[in-house]
């Protein structure tokens, strides 16, 4: 059983306005799973349903193979988009309280607090009140409080918004290490670069519906344009002549020192291998690659047409 979380045909609406429509998805153990979508798409509603803050109108949520129950929340860590701490509590008391309501015993909580405070080198802050901390320091505490009980599944809603760049890097590194340790991470974000960098798979939600799900490369492949990029040194006319009728130049970038990067569309039955054959001997090829869209492009391509349709 590799699936840790399975959402089946979940529907949720608020006062007749749908927030999620017939949504299904699977999150595999040990992966970093991205939840993407424009504002108001239903990402936070989905996350709140997984955290049992909301209950779905219909459909089911299965955790580790079984229908999810309250006790499963002890195996989930959650860092919401709108996050905060008790301002007049000490850092240690706060961590202890949040660890206890996540099901840890007092002695276990103490061991975990010692471990994480050592790991983030924040032992000096133990007795400080949260109101005395800087925003960056508070962000570290928030993250620690979400992972303190070592959850099987960590859910992060917009984890990089509001965090300073140093903390963003720190958290990315922690997430990678957690994945290596077999933990599953689900993150909802607008930051497509982060999705591309750290996610294994992702789902794209728009206007309460799932519009795509798959590995990052699958999502990119589905939206790829079929263009091939070639970087070479030599004569541009010789290059164009060599292409003959199999390929058409779509775009070119002059790099200097008689070097060019050209984007080619493929015609008819021509293949990647054909291109290499026709060019060899005419120009000095530095690199050839199949052009893939960035996740930013994937996002825009999938969301934009739907919006245009709606506007019509």
């Amino acid at each position, binding site marked *: 059983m590799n699936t840790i979380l399975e959402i089946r045909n979940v529907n949720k609406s608020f006062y007749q306005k749908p927030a999620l429509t017939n949504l299904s998805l699977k999150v595999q153990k040990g992966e970093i799973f991205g939840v993407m979508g424009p504002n108001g798409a239903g990402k936070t509603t989905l996350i709140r349903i997984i955290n049992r803050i909301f209950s779905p109108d219909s459909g089911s949520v299965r955790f580790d193979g079984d229908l999810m129950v309250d006790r499963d929340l002890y195996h989930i860590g959650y860092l919401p988009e709108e*996050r905060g*701490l008790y301002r007049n509590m000490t850092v240690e008391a706060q961590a202890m309280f949040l660890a206890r*309501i996540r099901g840890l015993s007092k002695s276990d909580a103490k061991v975990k607090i010692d471990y994480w405070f050592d790991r983030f080198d924040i032992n000096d802050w133990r007795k400080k009140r949260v109101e005395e901390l800087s925003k960056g320091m508070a962000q570290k505490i928030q993250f620690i409080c979400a992972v303190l009980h070592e959850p099987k599944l960590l859910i992060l809603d917009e984890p990089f918004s509001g965090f300073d760049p140093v903390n963003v890097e720190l958290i990315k590194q922690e997430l990678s290490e957690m994945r290596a340790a077999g933990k599953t991470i689900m993150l909802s974000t607008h930051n497509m670069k982060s999705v591309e960098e750290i996610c294994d798979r992702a789902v794209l939600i728009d206007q309460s519906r799932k519009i795509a799900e798959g590995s990052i490369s699958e999502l990119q492949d589905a939206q790829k344009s079929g263009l091939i990029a070639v970087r070479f040194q030599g004569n541009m006319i010789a290059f164009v002549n060599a292409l003959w009728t199999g390929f058409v130049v779509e775009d070119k970038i002059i790099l200097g020192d008689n070097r060019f990067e050209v984007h080619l569309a493929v015609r008819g039955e021509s293949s990647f291998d054909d291109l290499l054959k026709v060019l060899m001997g005419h120009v000095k090829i530095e690199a050839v690659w199949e052009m893939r869209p960035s996740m930013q492009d994937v996002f825009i391509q999938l969301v934009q047409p739907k919006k245009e349709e709606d506007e019509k």
Partner: protein
Amino acid sequence: MKNSWLIAVREWRERVSSRSFIMLSVIGPLIVLGMVYVMFALGGQSKQHWNVLIADPGGIMNNKIMPQIDNSVTYAFADGYIEVDEFRDAKKYQKFDALLEVNEKVLSNKTGFVFYREKPSVRMQTRVHYQFERRLEEIVVKEFTKMSLSKFRSIKQPINVTFADVNDPEDEANDLSGWAGFFFGTLIFLFIFLFGMTVLRSVSREKSNRIVEVLLASVSPFQLMRGKIMGIGMSAFLQFVIWISIIGAGLYFMRENIFPDVMDASNINIEQLTLDANDASYQESYYAAREYNEFVNLVYERVEFGTILGFFILFFIGGYLFYSSIFAAIGATMGSESDGQQFVIPIVIVLCLSLYAGYYVMNNPETQMATFLHYFPFTAPVVVMVKLSQGYEVGHAYEIYVAFFVLIVSAFISLLIAARLYKNGILQFGHRLRIKHLFKWLKST
């Protein structure tokens, strides 16, 4: 329940370690003790001084009234008649506080009239009455008997007639008892108000600092609300115990060390006082004791603290649950920490009305309205305290249990309604709370 308990303990710790809790724990009971002290102390040491003009056209009193100087009253005599209007307006009489009119038939009709500018204290009235009466006794003894004054006074025994209610022959339900109940009712009001507002602030703060979503991922909204109400209620209870301990210790200390003579009715020996009537300082303590003995008696003897405290705790719990769930619901539905005042004010007004209801029932215990207020959950906690100290009629003690049952059922319903509003409102931010929101969230499952 474990999660609610963890939340309750956190709330309790936060409250108990706050400066305002510690201040209120010390200052509150000290203010109450200070008020009791002032009531006792001022009674014995009143410095009110009166200038009394005695109009004695018949010369009956022979320009004499007291053999020794009384520091509280100075008498002057006038020979002729003085009209009340003249006394009131004439410049030469302005230095006098009162006019004692001694008519020529006073020895037969035994009546004097005192016209005052400002109403004197009961003590002053008693004093003037007493001194006038004693001077007339001297005259009567001299005019109509052959016995000595001391012999006359040893024979003279006042006949007291006490009017008593057949249902309450011990007069346990007099006004002062009602006031004691009203004091406890005010205490309940104060605690519900202070700690109800604490619930509201705590909920809205949790919402505005956004920790609430982290909590809701581990506990249900109902568990969160229940824990919060429990924790703050526990701190209120602790505060109450501190208040009662300090006030109890303070009253004991006062009785044993500061006012041992005034506090004990057995210290007053009327016969001895009669013989030593000329001793002004002794009279002073006699008057003080006579006036304040009732209050002392009330505080130390008549109020059944055990019973009242027992029911105080029950009705405080019921009233607190009832009101704090309303406060919690308002806190949860507010769009920001400063929002929602328009919904807080009506609740505070209702709470204040409950205080007035207590006052009303104290003065009109037998009316239908009083019966209604006794069972009405918004007013019951205060009103029951007043009724309890006034005493229930024989065979009607069950009424207090019925009131408690109604209050607990109402608190339960209030909790259910509040839980729904809490659940649907707690994750709504940035709006301006309107009545339509409340209806919408109430209807939503």
